[in-house]
């Protein structure tokens, strides 16, 4: 396959960026999207150019590092991660636009790589349970209804890639935060901190500068793990309950 790529090139966080056109040839349809970018980078290195910086780690679809905007869609046309997107999803001769996630809490580090630590800080604000660690407790000692454990697991599949923020017209991190709130809020271990968790995580996502949720649903469609909008409803429900119970965010 031969492709025309238009890639966002930006030298550093404060540099001005622009779209630059590259041509790649001999791309196998069995390559992943990242392997196609590897081919481009090898070509750039041979030519003495600066290779395109992009994030990636496991290349197995579970680490959440490799998000980029492909032709205006987070992680491209398939509902998966960029590393699990294969070139067979494209046609020979296609023009592909590749851009970094765009949100002010996700500043560009270089080219397609963005700093997503804002999501880590939302987790630090409440996305945990405070228990003594040690050997795994006997599983039967804390019964969990099957329905709850399934729903909690669905939410727990969130890999924090940031596609929800990238796809959202408001650049809101609601689906991410809601997935964490749902995952912990449905399990018995998450109950003691349930009220504080939701108010602190919502306060933190506002502090980071993410937009607000308008329930449009772009996030859920872009999510490589298919996290449902139901989680957002659960977060809202928890927040209402927490405010009634008098929970207030830590400053």
């Amino acid at each position: 396959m031969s492709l025309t790529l238009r890639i966002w090139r930006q030298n550093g966080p404060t540099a001005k960026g622009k779209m630059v056109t590259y041509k790649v040839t001999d791309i196998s349809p069995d390559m992943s999207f990242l392997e196609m970018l590897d081919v481009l980078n090898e070509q750039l290195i041979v030519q003495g150019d600066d290779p395109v910086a992009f994030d990636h780690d496991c290349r197995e679809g579970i680490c959440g590092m490799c998000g980029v905007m492909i032709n205006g869609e987070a992680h491209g046309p398939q509902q998966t991660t960029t590393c699990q997107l294969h070139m067979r999803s494209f046609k020979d001769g296609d023009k592909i636009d590749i851009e970094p996630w765009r949100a002010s809490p996700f500043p560009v580090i270089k080219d397609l790589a963005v700093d997503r630590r804002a999501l880590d800080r939302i987790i630090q604000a409440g996305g945990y349970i405070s228990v003594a660690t040690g050997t795994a407790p006997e599983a039967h000692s804390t019964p969990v209804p099957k329905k709850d454990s399934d729903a909690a697991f669905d939410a727990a599949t969130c890999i924090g890639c940031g596609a929800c923020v990238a796809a959202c017209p408001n650049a809101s991190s609601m689906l991410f935060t809601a997935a964490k709130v749902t995952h912990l809020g449905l399990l018995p271990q998450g109950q003691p901190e349930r009220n504080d968790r939701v108010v602190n995580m919502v306060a933190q996502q506002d502090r980071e500068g993410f937009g607000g949720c308008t329930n449009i649903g772009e996030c859920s469609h872009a999510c490589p793990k298919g996290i449902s909008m139901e989680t957002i409803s659960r977060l809202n429900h928890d927040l209402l309950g927490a405010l009634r119970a008098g929970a207030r965010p830590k400053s």
Partner: protein
Amino acid sequence: MAKTSSVFKKIVMAVSGILMLLFLIAHMVGNLHIFQGAASFNHYSEWLRTVGEPALPPRTLLTVIEIGLLVSVAAHMWAAISLWRQAKRARPQSYVTKKSVAQSYASRTMRWGGVIIGLFIVYHILDLTFGAANPAGTDSTPYDRTVASFQNPIATTVYVITLILLGMHLRHGIWSATQTLGQSNRRRERTVSVFAVVFSTLLIAGYLVVPAAVVFGLVD
């Protein structure tokens, strides 16, 4: 901080929206008095101003509704504007290429649609409540003002377009409020969506029968 969080603003938006929606239902049903003739329509308008007398002072019901609506409109606009600004700040640099896969026309037009509906309400009150912007003038009966307004093609077109826009605003608004108040889940999502479409369509149809009746000469 808790009261200024983006989710709290959405709750304000949802609750004020629901209050205005209840008013819209009552207003639509009230409008249908026009099919009972001029006397009934004008009498209904008079009744709204005198209900509860002499136990209650004149205009008690209307004053309560007016205050409720003013507070709701102000709260709805405050929440909308501050969330709009927050969203703008959250993405100062837009994408060169962006494809939308889930948003509907209704959800995309919420903000500007809301602005248009707000401006329309001002015109609507000047037209039909005060008569200042009405061809029949200020010292006319409500029935005369309604008929005069809908005999003007421009006023009628503006009314029809804005009401359709309002219907779409409600279609996304009903779904969004259900989410915001934490009442939606995966099983209910479809039901809520279908309800929102059916409800908005019926409500707006209820409004649009009045200009249709005037235009087609059933009411004059």
